[in-house]
């Protein structure tokens, strides 16, 4: 089963949010949890990135690539990047993979590759 990451669409006005927020940022008129889930598109544009060397214990690697991507539908997402030579503005494609393992908890998120 392929995993998705969800954006949340306000049922009152249709505004899309990622990540979840309780009250719609656009109209503020929704009831609690009154959202529809919409899977995030995978394709986007790399807005900025970094390689982090000073990492928390969960990451026993020398460095970690992170980036902010603007997806096709205008939503932005922070994710890991597996891109040998990243450049601002380049096209990227995301895949949902394990991004963090703290002892026994595994978290999934978006990892971006060169498109």
């Amino acid at each position: 089963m392929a995993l998705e990451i969800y954006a949340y669409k306000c049922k009152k006005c249709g505004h899309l949010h990622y990540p979840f927020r309780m009250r719609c940022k656009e109209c503020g008129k929704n009831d609690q949890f009154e959202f529809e889930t919409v899977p995030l598109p995978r394709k986007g544009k790399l807005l900025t990135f970094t390689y982090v060397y000073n990492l928390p214990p969960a990451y026993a690697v020398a460095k970690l690539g992170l980036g902010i991507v603007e997806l096709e539908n205008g939503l932005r997402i922070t994710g890991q990047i597996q891109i040998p030579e990243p450049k601002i503005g380049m096209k990227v494609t995301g895949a949902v993979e394990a991004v963090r393992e703290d002892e026994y908890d595994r978290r999934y998120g978006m990892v971006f590759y060169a498109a």
Partner: protein
Amino acid sequence: MATNLEKILRPVDTPLPPYPPKHMLLANGQEMVIRQVGRDEIPDILRHIYPLILVERDFYDLVSARVYAELLAYYQHRVQDEYVFVAQTDGELVAIVNGRSVNAEVGMSYHTLALRRGLRIGAHAFASKMEYHIDILKHKEVLVVAESPIGFRRWMIEYRLEKRFDIPHELGGVPSYALTKELFDGARKKLVVGRRPVPKKLLEKAQAAILPPSDPPRPPADLLAATRSKGDVTGTALMLQRWKQEGKV
């Protein structure tokens, strides 16, 4: 007959190529010299390490006690093929690194003791050791362990050292990690830093005397408060405080 006993007890050192000294510009604009020292300079170094045995923080006490022993063993000819480098700024001792050659193919890294923090001096000193083993002694690999979590991250994780868990390291018999020639070559840009030759005046200043560190790690100013800071109400969390309490120091 004493001479014969000494001959038995004293290991025969393999002739090893010396480490050519190098210099580097530190973050504060000072020049640092890293050079190998011989037995004659060990007493000058030992007296600066000795006080650190009482600094019960960041493993300074353990590392200093071990380095003291290793340097003393080198001085008294009771260890085989050990080398000792010092790092100096304006003659002032800022770091000591040591290790030894196990055989023609394998090196054993001992310690890196930085006496001045905040200028990445430990990183320069560790790198110089690795350069000596791989580039100059032509070892195929160097066995490394770490006493502190920071050392572990800086060396094992950052340089992706290979596990050699079947080989107990001479430091405490714990499983070793190895920096192989391949790993070293891959990280050459990071590991082979510094310049040669050292300008004459700079080298002469370093060789003239090993001056005391200006701001070495010290035991806490308030020993009782320090024991409280470790969640202890008996005043014994620090050995130094315990000895004080018992009138032993």
